[in-house]
């Protein structure tokens, strides 16, 4: 396992860059654990200082050292994005495989529920949760709620793959061998849908983090929790862009872009490692 990793690093530029980017962001967010600064405290430094040797990322108009503040913001945002992705993957795998493999009434009921979740307007519901929970709305609860809305499309996708797998030879063998449906789904079919799961996970993270930013910018999240969204909320609240405190907006945006670029490169190179065909494909045509 380690040697695979070493080889990938050594020989695959994309993997190496991806590891460096994601690693750097993760390390950056982990720095929050040794931060000398309380992220909720304001006016602890001179406000509006541009990036410099003393303040690497500058300071914002609330008198916070942006470097340390963003370590917390990224920790929370990454945790949030990963939680939503993970939870919604679990739901979509379970629903998708069950609906696809079991079929019949199970399929019909699950897809009916699925359609309802697709049809329900997410935004008012999320805002409502905010109004009800207010400052009890921490990142995990928000992730839990969003996970409830992040699964239906992908469950449909997984279902369509599972439908195809159902008629494949190996499924019949497994049935004859007396494997239980649950075992078939999770031992035989799951590996086939994993590429979809990984591919949709990233899209899901972009979606959930984007929605968090939207809610935060409108003031519908707990704005005392430092996240990328609340960082932008406060920047907006202090007219950062028109005033010229550009680093307050540019730095978190650049970091988030780098995060996803890194994740994308990792996903692409891992995919190539798992499936060398795609490599050949890219050299071909």
């Amino acid at each position: 396992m380690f040697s695979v990793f070493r080889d990938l690093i050594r020989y695959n530029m994309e993997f190496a860059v991806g590891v460096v980017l994601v690693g750097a962001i993760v390390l950056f967010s982990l720095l929050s654990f040794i931060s000398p600064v309380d992220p909720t405290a304001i006016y602890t430094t001179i406000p509006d200082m541009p990036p410099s040797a003393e303040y690497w990322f500058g300071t914002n108009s609330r008198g916070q050292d942006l470097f340390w503040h963003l370590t917390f913001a990224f920790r929370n945002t990454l945790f949030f994005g990963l939680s939503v992705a993970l939870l919604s993957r679990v739901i979509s795998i379970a629903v998708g495989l069950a609906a696809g493999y079991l079929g019949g009434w199970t399929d019909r009921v699950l897809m009916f529920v699925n359609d309802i979740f697709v049809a329900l307007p997410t935004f008012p519901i999320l805002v409502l949760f905010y109004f009800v929970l207010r400052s009890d709305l921490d990142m995990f609860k928000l992730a839990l709620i969003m996970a409830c809305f992040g699964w239906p499309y992908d469950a449909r996708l997984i279902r369509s793959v599972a439908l195809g797998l159902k008629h494949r030879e190996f499924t019949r063998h497994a049935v004859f061998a007396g494997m239980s449906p649950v075992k078939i789904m999770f031992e035989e079919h799951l590996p086939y849908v994993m590429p979809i799961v990984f591919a949709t996970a990233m899209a899901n993270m972009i979606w959930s983090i984007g929605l968090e930013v939207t809610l935060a910018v409108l003031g519908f999240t707990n704005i005392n929790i430092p996240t990328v969204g609340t960082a932008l909320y406060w920047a907006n609240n202090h007219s950062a862009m028109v005033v010229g405190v550009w680093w307050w907006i540019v730095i978190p945006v650049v970091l988030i872009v780098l995060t996803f670029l890194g994740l994308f490169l990792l996903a692409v190179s891992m995919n190539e490692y798992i499936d060398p065909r795609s490599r050949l494909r890219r050299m071909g045509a």
Partner: protein
Amino acid sequence: MSTYLVFALKRFLQFLAVVFTGVSASFFIAHLSPISPVETIIGRVSGQSAFSPEAVESLRQTLTELFGLNVPLHEQYFNFLRRFLVGDLGPSLLAFPTPAMKLVGLALPWTVGLLTLSTILTWLVGNILGGLAGYYQNSRLLKAFGIVAIGVQPIPYYIVAFLMVIIFGFLWPVLPVSGGFAMNVRPSWSPEFVGSILLHGILPAASLVIVGLGTWFLGMRALVSNIVTEDYVTYAELAGVRRERIVSSYVIRNAMVPQLTALAMSLGGIFSGTIITEQVFSYPGLGTLLVRAVNAGDSAVVLAVSCVAVIAVATAILLIDLIHPLLDPRIRVE
């Protein structure tokens, strides 16, 4: 034929069930809000002038009765269902007694117009570029575009929209940054009005296209780069079938099945508006209405917008299900 009819009927029943459940869920969600429309109005009214506590209390009672909020929730629910069946979603509580649907109707054309156009534009451009990038995988230009698309995708939409305002409204003020049309034209079928609408739509639409493009592009590229390795494409190439024919009838045609499905879903999804677009560009539409209604506890308008959205998405799902067998001959009608 008749199997298709039975299939369509089944699907339609499911559509009705989804609409009913979705709308009911929306009703309870809208009414669970802790925000009281009565208090919103009292706050607004009594903040204006020196109001005595007694006066406020009597106003509160009047409004509560007027809005029908003095009956239990389940009764309100049945009243709502009864009215919903005849297409009446009741009066808005923020603009009492104006029907909530009238407010929705005012905002809807803007949202639908802007979003339909930008969604279709995004879809077309994203799919064409993505298809080309999937087919001509060694094109430098398309590769570069792919990297840009990956980079742009995670930028929060708010930032993109806001940057458009800053760039084209502030640094280089050439385009209108707010409103749906200029103040010196009047709604009519005149070229001035249409031109003004288009001019005011450029920035909001452009911001939507920029953020949406990458998703379609990457999706289509992945689809196409899978399809070009399919045997039927290789075979057609070996047979010397014309390249344009291969691209259009073999590659694109096969990629269209999922992409058209996704387009239908996106179009179904536009009926809840784009809150940030409307906020940033002061653009009229459902998003602003929804945010204001949520903020003011106007459950009738929240419900009206939600119902429109639920019906739109359910319709999109229904259409997809109905059209799918036609798009993809392999899908058998159950």
